[in-house]
């Protein structure tokens, strides 16, 4: 590990951020501990195969990217009846105990260097609190990044038998010169019989280095579903994870990405089956054009006590250009035999026969290719139950194809 950021990072900066948000002592302490731990923490894990490192995170110059006290964003929060959608200051005022109980309970604040950095420096973010028994409508969060670096932290607490759908959109507003750094941590706590669907659509500027960890804990009968759409950024390292901790809990992780030029997406979809009768479904589709590169890791981990598990994973990548690269590692870790698990992964290009069929019916080749690429995303789009997110994603794909 080389590029350490804290040459220009001090405890007093962390204190100032904490003070701005009106934080209690315990949170400041958590931040300080994360800051102090930076010295000993490694970069997030990336896949290495003989002679190759799939994503080079050490190449980032964090020192020049991160400006802890200069953060600016537009935050648009549309809340829904029965659910509280709060800024951090509001959440700390109104639900201090709940925040203290759950903060860092799903994502270890010191899981790796970049997570600890986020814990120490986050200034933006949202707490979504869904009280017991509430069926909330859609919650929408739009984050527009207006500074060189931005650290976003979202905590979702869905109490027993509640349900909520959250749509998060990340974009870039006023352009700043040079590279940018965006970091987002999302923790989802789904208590017994709760249902959380968290959809994120990342369309940051292509000068942005983007690090995201989204992780949920599902209690008995709970469901945590994720949608992770990645269109923007220069480099994205995104991990979407669910631990199925309660019997009969479920998770679906849907991923879609479309890379062009020299974009690099490192996408992880991971699920841990740790209780009985749990179900997981991981579906990712991606398209690569120009010199774009995708790195995909899918993990289905079935624990020793996870009886009667069902776990499925599919990953498909379409390559539109010879200069693109698609690396994939779909992994199965199975410790209980009472399991039905499968995964499949494919990489290929637009099917020649389909092209021939369409062009022979008078569609020009460019339009035919675009239609086939859009069609390729359909199996993922179909699974997106939120109309607005599906339409947005579809629109971004449409636009990218016609750039």
């Amino acid at each position: 590990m080389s590029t350490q950021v804290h040459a220009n990072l001090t405890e007093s900066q962390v204190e100032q951020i904490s003070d701005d948000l009106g934080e209690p002592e315990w949170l400041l302490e958590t931040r300080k501990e994360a800051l102090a731990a930076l010295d000993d923490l490694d970069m997030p894990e990336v896949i290495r195969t003989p002679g190759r490192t799939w994503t080079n995170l050490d190449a980032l110059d964090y020192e020049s990217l991160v400006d802890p006290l200069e953060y600016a964003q537009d935050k648009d929060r549309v809340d829904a009846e029965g659910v509280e959608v709060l800024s951090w200051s509001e959440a700390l005022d109104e639900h201090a105990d709940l925040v203290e109980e759950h903060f860092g309970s799903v994502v270890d604040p010191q899981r790796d260097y970049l997570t600890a950095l986020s814990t120490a420096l986050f200034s933006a973010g949202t707490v979504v609190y869904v009280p017991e028994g509430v069926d909330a409508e859609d919650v929408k969060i739009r984050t527009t990044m207006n500074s060189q670096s931005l650290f976003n932290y979202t905590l979702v607490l869905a109490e027993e038998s509640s349900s909520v759908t959250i749509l998060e959109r990340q974009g870039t507003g006023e352009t700043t010169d040079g590279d940018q750094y965006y970091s987002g941590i999302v923790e989802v706590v789904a208590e017994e019989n709760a249902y959380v669907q968290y959809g994120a659509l990342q369309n940051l500027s292509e000068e942005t280095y983007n690090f995201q960890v989204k992780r949920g804990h599902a209690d008995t009968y709970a469901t945590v579903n994720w949608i992770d759409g990645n269109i923007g950024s220069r480099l994205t390292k995104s991990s979407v994870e669910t631990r199925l901790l309660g019997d009969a809990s479920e998770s679906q992780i849907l991923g879609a990405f479309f890379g062009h030029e020299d974009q690099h997406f490192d996408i992880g979809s991971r699920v841990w089956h740790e209780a009985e009768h749990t179900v997981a479904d991981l579906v990712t589709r991606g398209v690569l054009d120009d010199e774009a590169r995708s790195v995909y890791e899918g993990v289905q981990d079935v624990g020793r006590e996870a009886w009667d598990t069902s776990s499925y994973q599919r990953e498909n990548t379409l390559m539109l250009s010879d200069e693109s690269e698609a690396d994939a590692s779909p992994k199965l870790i199975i410790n209980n035999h009472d399991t039905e698990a499968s995964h499949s992964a494919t990489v290929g290009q637009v099917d020649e026969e389909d092209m021939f069929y369409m062009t022979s019916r008078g569609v020009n080749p460019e339009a035919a290719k675009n239609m086939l690429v859009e069609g390729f995303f359909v199996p993922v789009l179909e699974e997106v139950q939120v109309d607005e997110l599906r339409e947005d994603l579809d629109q971004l794909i449409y636009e990218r194809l016609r750039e």
Partner: protein
Amino acid sequence: MSSDQDHLKETDTEKRFEFKKEEKSAFEAEKGLTEETIRVISEDKDEPEWMLERRLRALEQYKEMPMPDDWPGAPDLSEVDVDEIVPYIRPDIETRGGVDDWNDLPEEIQDTFDKLGIPEAEKNALSGVGAQYESEIVYQNMQERWEEKGVIFCDMDKAVQEHEDILKEYFMTKAVPPSDNKFAALHGAIWSGGSFVYVPEDTTVDMPVQAYFRMNSDGMGQFEHTLIIAEENSEVHYIEGCSAPKYSEFNLHSGGVEVFVKENAHVQYSTVQNWSKNTYNLNTKRAICEADGTMEWVSGSMGSKATMLYPSTVLKGPGATDNHITIAFAGEGQDIDTGAKVYHNAPETKSTIESKSISKDGGRTNYRGLVHIADGAEDSSTSVECDALMFDNESTSDTMPYMEIQESKVDVAHEATVGKIGDEDVFYLQSRGLDDDDAKQMIVAGFIEPITEELPIEYAVELNRLIELEMEGSLG
């Protein structure tokens, strides 16, 4: 099927694999690994200077390289202590490099191989058998009609003496350089014995060439080297079998296999490996396949405490093909980490990998595979299929494939499934009068059939028998 069963009655595989013998050796190297040991081995073998130099260079590389233990889920190698193994033992026979007539072998060695059923295979007029006992080939035979065509099948030590130019060019220079990994370097330093197979142009060896390796001493290491060169338009099928009885100390097997498949040649390399459950089996096997050549790996990995083995093929020329068929079986205390690596470095190359694994009684199997499609390897295709069968929740079955795809005009597919032995299938068979164990054995036999049908009948029978013994828990 009936002939299979007759064969099973005739041979008692369990006894064959479990016996061990007291015996004396002609020469035994000191424990551990030093430059001095290597000089002694090289001198005892009367090797040319260049081979000694390669050994010493490999030793230097070995010392510098890290253990392959930082991989995700890698087997525990903390017990592997090279200082505690005896790297080289030459059995007490007069004739260096093997005898021509089976009856010239010392009785105790004959007896050993009798129990392994090797002479039987020989009697069945198979083309040739090389049998390695400890570190050296003690017996080998080759049918004359192949020799007349210029086919060479001899042990590696003899090859160093008699085919020096070929060895100098191919030995650990192109396929498995010592720098490949720590155990390839170790192998390069202290290799001993193994087989050399050379098939000239336009020659088809239509019977399998066989070698059998066995470790018989306590706490020893075996480091045989196999070099196969199949010239243009030639064809050969090489089969090796391995076993070792059980001792209290650990054994280390670190073989090296290099296969050269020239234009339009066809090589099949089959292994049925059944090391004792205290053996660390850390092998490096690689084939380089030229245009329109075909390489086929068929592997059955049974036994051993831990196995790390990923036979790999470099598809170097256009139209080259690689097929992998592997089966792994891990019982109590075993960690079988195996898979396949394929590098598609030319257009229109094709690979298929079919991997089956069975885990039981706390055993762990892992498919760890790498498919690399280089930029420019257009119109290449690869298909990987992994199926795992698990018996209980003490066992573990992992699948860790890695796919690096740098070319768009390709067809890449990977599929894996894991499941338990089907209750319905067992019930069906039981309702037809089979008991629980027999029903499970029958299901397993069906599960591994794609492997067994690629093997000559004696090996298929042996593999089936080994799996039966594993399932009874009576082996190792």
